[in-house]
């Protein structure tokens, strides 16, 4: 133990360094490895070729989420490549003894939804997954980050990773969110401020009264999109909100072990006097609903703003990039986005597909109808979220409003499973990426919160949910 004040990140980092030889990256121990069907097959092949086994199957958890359909379970999967990836994962998990939340499991879901939901995600842990949104788990005060397939193989074989120590950044959000403004708007505003490369090389800790007052699902939304600002990991120090969420989850400690764990978890905070390499501040009182207009998540603005003009951008490359984005999006500088017609509304993804998100959208849709020109897909983040939502009657609200209520999965967030936009279509999406073609070749994405998505579904065009709320 050292007496120097340390940040939350440094505490977890120090606690997991196995070896750190001078000049080399640290060997970092990994507590939990999450695996899915799309980025893992080549890693298992690598193990087989080298004659290696999985070192800690009981610290590994697998599911299928990226390519699977969200149609009713009685409709057979037709995509031969998806079938192949599913059966490969099944085979790999059987052969190497890894627990799998498979197609028939009531625990299946998006990997970043099920980890926390099962209580596998816990404070103070190191968590990795072959997926850049692994930062989601940082909401519990874990150091969680995405890795590539070579690194998946490293963790499977050794339960460790070679890592250069990142720098630390504090993003402090004080104040109180106004009605109609959500956790999604916080993170979209953060990314618009720091830019999509602003967090490169950093681990972010989100602090401040506005972050503290978020529930766990909202904290996950914030941490989830850290990578959209370039940061591999984002985290929030654990507190009573965290412990209440985790209590009695199937994989969380139970009984006396729980009390012991909570006592340890309470130490997981940045010490007074510890310093970050960089600090960024935002005031929640100033935030409004946010929406993106371009082809990366940093191209975001207040929903009432007008689309920026490339002519106002001094740097040549930045100007060309903005022009390219507006050309792809088919948008005119100086015009508002409010009122822009929308073809599809997607409520889902590891950013916004948990019960709280569904409730927010349902609160807008209750007693209202999705506009006739709009297709709205509601894709719960996991089978557990789906079951709970149905128990609470949310499915009926969505169906009565005219939305599609589907099985869980990544769905139109990544458009690998047939849920996708047609070329030229516009979507308001609660997912995390508006890259060219992300939701289907030629598709155009406006990223926003579940409240904004629901309001836009009703209006048939980009809408400000606060107007609806004021008319209530």
């Amino acid at each position: 133990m050292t007496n120097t004040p340390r940040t939350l990140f440094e505490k977890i980092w120090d606690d997991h360094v196995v070896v750190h030889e001078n000049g080399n990256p640290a060997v970092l121990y990994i507590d939990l490895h999450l695996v899915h069907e799309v980025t893992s097959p080549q890693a298992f092949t690598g193990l087989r070729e080298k004659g290696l086994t999985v070192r800690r199957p009981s610290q590994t958890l697998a599911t299928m989420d990226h390519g699977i359909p969200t149609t009713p379970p009685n409709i057979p999967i037709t995509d031969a490549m998806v079938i192949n990836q599913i059966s490969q994962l099944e085979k790999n998990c059987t052969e190497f003894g890894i627990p799998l939340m498979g197609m028939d499991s009531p625990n299946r879901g998006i990997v970043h939804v099920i980890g926390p939901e099962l209580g596998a995600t816990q404070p103070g842990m190191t968590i990795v997954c072959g997926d850049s949104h692994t930062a989601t788990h940082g909401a519990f005060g874990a150091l969680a980050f995405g890795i590539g397939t070579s690194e998946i193989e490293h963790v499977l074989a050794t339960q460790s990773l070679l890592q250069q120590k990142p720098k630390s950044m504090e993003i402090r959000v004080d104040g109180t969110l106004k009605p109609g403004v959500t956790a999604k708007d916080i993170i979209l505003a953060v990314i618009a401020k720091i830019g999509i490369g602003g967090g490169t090389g950093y681990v972010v800790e989100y602090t401040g009264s506005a972050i503290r007052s978020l529930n766990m699902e909202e904290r996950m939304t914030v941490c989830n999109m850290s990578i959209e600002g370039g940061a591999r990991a984002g985290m929030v120090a654990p507190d009573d909100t965290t412990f209440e969420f985790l209590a009695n989850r199937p994989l969380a400690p139970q009984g006396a072990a729980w009390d012991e764990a909570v006592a340890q978890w309470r130490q997981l905070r940045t010490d007074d006097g510890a310093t970050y390499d960089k600090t960024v501040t935002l005031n929640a009182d100033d935030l409004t609903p946010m929406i993106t207009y371009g082809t990366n998540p940093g191209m975001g603005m207040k929903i009432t703003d007008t689309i920026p003009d490339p002519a106002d951008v001094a740097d040549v490359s930045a100007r060309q990039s903005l022009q390219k984005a507006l050309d792809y999006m088919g948008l005119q500088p100086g015009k508002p986005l409010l009122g822009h017609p929308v073809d599809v509304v997607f409520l889902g993804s590891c950013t916004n597909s948990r019960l709280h998100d569904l409730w927010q959208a349902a609160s807008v849709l209750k007693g209202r109808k999705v506009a006739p020109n709009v297709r709205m897909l509601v894709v719960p983040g996991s089978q557990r979220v789906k079951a709970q939502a149905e128990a609470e009657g949310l499915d009926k609200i969505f169906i009565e409003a005219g939305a599609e209520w589907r099985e869980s999965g990544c769905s139109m967030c990544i458009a690998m499973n047939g849920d996708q936009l047609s070329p030229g279509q516009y979507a308001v999406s609660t997912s995390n990426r508006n890259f060219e073609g992300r939701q289907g070749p030629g598709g155009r994405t406006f990223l926003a919160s579940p409240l904004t998505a629901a309001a836009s579904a009703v209006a048939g065009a980009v809408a400000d949910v606060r107007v609806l709320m004021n008319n209530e």
Partner: protein
Amino acid sequence: MNPLKTYTGKIVSIPTENIDTDQIIPAQFLKVTDKNGLGKNLFFNWRYLPDGSPNPDFVLNRAESQGATILVAGDNFGCGSSREHAPWALAAFGFRVLISTGFADIFRNNSLKNGLLPVIVDRETHRQLQSLAEEDPETRITIDLPNQTLTLPDGRTVNFPIDPFSKHCLVNGIDQLGYLREHLPAIEEYEKTHPQRVKTI
């Protein structure tokens, strides 16, 4: 992994900033279960027209770009998804060196594990490389990894940063898993003093 020491190759420039890995290799090509054959789908949505024919406006499709093995790309190259399919596709297409003013973290890590060298240069050098590629598509430059230098056609030499470990692995064609496995005894020791935090079985 092929070692990479000194390397001379022809450059090609895609100046767009923030090229994400969805552009490098779109999600529809992630349904494979091996690493091979991704080169033909590199930059798919930019490279091909909706009817499947090559887009004549895209730089990699131009006759004068053929044979280029060094890609000069805009800032923050490789942002977004962690898919290692992106460096697999770039390497399968024939690229050995990537030059930008900045790379996304995960992409950079993934590239280094596939014998693909990310070279970070200052804005001035970057601009110069871009203009060279546009003015003379036959421009060739030399990368000297042991000395961490890049030599422009006019003889000017620019230094670039790389951490000593990644450099050692690339220069000698070493797979990092080997190094990690040498530390298995220490990993076992660690496990003895650190109780398992979660049991998934």
